[in-house]
């Protein structure tokens, strides 16, 4: 196999070592990275690493393998930045951060793609405790949202299942956002800037839709909401 020229840049930042992995072939780039680490293992020992994988599309096997390899060198991989949505999802599944804390500068934020009201993220699985799902649009979940899970959407959230975790709809201030579930008993509910705690405790939830009405979040059964 011909090795690609190293398209890897490593620099120290506040968040730890920032490693850019470009190029086209993932395996040979990973090998390049390992070779670089092997040259100066003491320098890398104990470091925290952020990986910018750019356009590489990575699945669980590839990313968890790299994480374990890095941990053999005493490196902690804590964040993966990517332009691919699949890679972002993989990283979130593995509990890795996908964005760094905002730098404290006065520069105006770069405008990200505008919120599209008719765009939705489709999730077909149970969202378990500790999972964090964030999307710049609406979120539809076919499955349960368990206590300890967090769903953050710029738009609305619909759960075709039991909702028992935390949901924040309209996370950037959209007061028109709604939250609905077949079995509606969220631990905590936020819409835009309002917060509500479910008054029910251990009762069987039912199909309900929540929205902002005046100053409060109200939840009502589907029949009366129509």
């Amino acid at each position, binding site marked *: 196999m011909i090795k690609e020229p190293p398209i890897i840049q490593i620099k120290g930042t506040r968040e730890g070592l920032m490693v850019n992995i470009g190029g086209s072939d993932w395996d040979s780039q990973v090998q390049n990275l390992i070779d670089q680490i092997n040259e100066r293992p003491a320098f890398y020992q104990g470091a925290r690493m952020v990986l910018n994988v750019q356009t590489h599309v990575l699945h*669980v*096997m590839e990313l*968890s393998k790299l994480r*374990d*390899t890095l*941990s*053999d060198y*005493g490196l902690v991989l804590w964040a993966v930045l990517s332009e691919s949505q699949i890679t972002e999802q993989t990283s979130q*599944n*593995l*509990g890795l951060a996908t964005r760094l804390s905002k730098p404290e500068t006065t520069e105006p934020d770069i405008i990200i793609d505008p919120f599209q009201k008719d765009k939705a993220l489709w999730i077909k*699985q*149970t969202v*378990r*405790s*500790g*999972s964090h799902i964030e999307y710049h649009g609406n979120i539809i979940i076919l499955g*349960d949202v*368990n*206590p*300890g899970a967090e769903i953050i959407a710029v738009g609305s959230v619909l759960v075709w299942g039991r909702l028992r975790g935390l949901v924040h709809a309209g996370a950037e201030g959209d007061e028109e956002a709604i939250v609905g579930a077949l079995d509606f008993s969220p631990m905590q509910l936020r819409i835009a800037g309002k917060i509500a705690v479910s008054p029910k405790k251990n009762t069987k939830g039912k199909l309900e839709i929540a929205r902002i009405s005046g100053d409060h979040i109200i939840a009502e059964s589907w029949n009366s909401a129509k």
Partner: protein
Amino acid sequence: MTTKVVTVTSGKGGVGKTTAVANIAVGLAQLGQRVVCIDGDIGLRNLDVLLGLENRIVYDLVDVVEGRCRIRQAMIRDKRLPELYLIPAAQTRDKSAVSPSDMVNLCNELRSECDWIIIDSPAGIERGFRNSIAPADQVLVMTNPEVSAVRDADRVIGILDAEEKGPVSLIINRINPVMIKRGDMLSVDDVLDLLAIPLIGIIPEDESVIIASNRGTPLAFDNRSKVGLAFINIAKRLMGEEIPVSQMENQGFLQKLFSGRK
């Protein structure tokens, strides 16, 4: 038969992982299987105590990984069952002494020596947990019928899902039918409802577990013990025997009443 690596984990501490590992290992060994259990809780080892083998430790897991001894030298053979071995954890080191790939290599080396490798995972979801699940072919998640334990089990199942580890099945420990009947304890159905994974065993609450662990004699040696029987049934289910969970473990009158509700 190909060797299977089974990891017992829970997220929350104190739910009975180590007890389960000791008893399932004894159960499998009684069925004529060659079993090696590995204590993954480096720095806080316990499995040796529960198996009554603590005074025979010479080498441990970290010695093997760091090349100070051969794997065979660290395998302590049980006096009661000729094909049951323990690889103890080091007590004077911490989790970072071993890496996930060390565990994978170790288990691969052991595959020719035994039928089952049972790994006792430490509590938490950090390095020790990652080490323990790395080589697993099958994972048993253990929980108590308590909201906090179930929440942590849910988190662990989520991580196992994400890492594509499996199959994953559930053991519910310390079931107290009287408390469930009073409505003071989550029922088996409540737990299954939330976690939504297959159930491989239910263990009743019983103070004899504490006595057994102090004595270093797992209850699976005593076939009159309800707890021992429940663990032996888990061992049999691991072997592929189909034993319905509800009928075997629910021996008490109240439990029968309760399971009849299903």
